[in-house]
């Protein structure tokens, strides 16, 4: 199976990615090659096989439900592209 430009548009929407129009053909050709590679999985007989949940067959530990980390908002917001009065700035979302 191969992916055409409509598929790429849909995936870019799902993944919130912009790809310039002149790169779409190359992206779709390369993704189609990758799909051809992963299509080899279809030949494997997995009728009786359980999907792997964890390589060591373990479950994750639970911890006590208590706050253990301090949040230093100013320190964290040092990395933010745009903040005002402790809030992150993004394009308007509510009219």
């Amino acid at each position, binding site marked *: 199976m191969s*992916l055409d430009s409509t*598929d*790429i548009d849909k*995936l*870019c929407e*799902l*993944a*919130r*990615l*912009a*790809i*310039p129009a002149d790169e779409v053909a190359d*992206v779709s050709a*390369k*993704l189609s*090659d*990758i*799909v*051809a*590679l*992963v*299509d*080899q*999985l*279809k030949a*494997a007989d*997995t009728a009786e*096989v*359980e*999907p*792997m*949940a*964890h*390589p*060591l067959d*373990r479950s*994750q*530990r639970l*911890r006590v439900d208590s706050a*253990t980390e301090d949040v*230093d908002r100013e*320190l*964290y*917001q*040092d*990395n*933010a*592209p*745009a903040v005002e009065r402790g809030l*992150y*700035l*993004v*394009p308007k*979302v509510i009219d």
Partner: protein
Amino acid sequence: MHDKTLALTARALQAGEISSVELTNRCLERIRRFDESLNAFITVTGDRALEQAAAADRRIAAGDATALTGIPIAHKDIFCTAGIRTSCGSRMLDNFISPYDATVVERLSRAGAVMLGKTNMDEFAMGSSNETSFYGAVHNPWDRDKVPGGSSGGSAAAVAARLVPAATGTDTGGSIRQPAALAGVTGLKPTYGRVSRYGMVAFASSLDQAGTLTQTAEDAALLLEAMAGCDSRDSTSLDEPVPDYSRAIGEPLEGLTIGVPENFFDDGLDAGNAAALTEALGELERLGAKLKSIRLDNVHLSVPAYYVVAPAEASSNLSRFDGVRYGYRSPEAMAGDLNAFYRRNRGEGFGAEVKRRILIGAWVLSTGYYDAYYLQAQKVRQLISGDFARAFEDVDIVAGPTTPTPAFGIGQKTGDPVQMYLNDIYTIGANLAGLPAMSVPCGFSGALPVGLQLIGPHLSEARLLQTAHHFQRETDWHARVPPGYGENP
């Protein structure tokens, strides 16, 4: 001194033959002299390193040193370092100053290791050649027109060129072992969960594991002892005691049975690599190991399974990079609506390979494809894991090639992602099954190094390190220095 192993350097430090400040200055001088031609470092933290070195010297004088106190090391730029840029090789994080240290960084720092800087890597660890870095390709010190392997290519090149005695790396599909093989150093990927992933920028969370790039297995043992162990901040880190690896490596090899997968030695393997590997397996036999031919029947499915599971997890993990709280924001981002804002930030902030993997991940997880691809890949993963489990009923470890060929040319495979992915054919199985694995220098194909891969059952790091250590006591492949990098400083 610069070409000494970590273990020998530690002895010299403890004996007062050299100070950490002297040692650190020599490493920094070598980085200044050689790194322009290698591009192994993204950030060099000279001033901070000298402060840490002075503190280490005081600690040694006070008799309060560990084996790593005063040893200069470098961290792959995927590990968060408080107050220092952590770029992950991406434009997306070019301006990101981590507010905290990764557990690996914190533990090595607590042991007294001196951080020289952050090493170059494929963007978000996605690559097998270190060519996808936003900061440019890393050059292989054995031949600067060749790749050093990836994604921990900067760490491998820095250790190979003796800029630093040891470096950290991460391995999701071979990213420690493959560059270790192509650059002629010793690389260890521990069992999934052996080392905490806290503060290690996530690529594929069910596969990622931190490890080491060193000259020798003895050095890897010293580092792993300090890095490994349960961490309350990583719920997938294993709650298992950390063995005394340095002691274990000296134990005799007698009685060791090594499985050699016959289907790893097929037409896809370079003739020079095959010859070096055959010689290395003979050496292990002379050391007392018994070789046994085995088959890993589903190994040909490891690359396809990986390129479903890893991109699926990556598309989810990388959704956090949106240009709101940190990371790249397009100059035009505020012009459109919120959707366009995300798409611009991510479209401009990520490179081509990262975008491909995010899109493939979104595709295999999307309605109508999930069962056929993602679920099927997780079942195939179980088959591959089962192959190894059956093999380990008869053999202690598995030995074979790390890579199909020696280092290839810079630019040679960048136009064809699938060809690039096939470099990882021998390494991916260990990640899918969560097994510990190493690459050990074992000879040359032409003028380029070849790696011998050792894979063991879960938590058998001591066994792997012991095998590699005995091999390195009888061979000197690991001690070869690339031409032009042998002189002082």
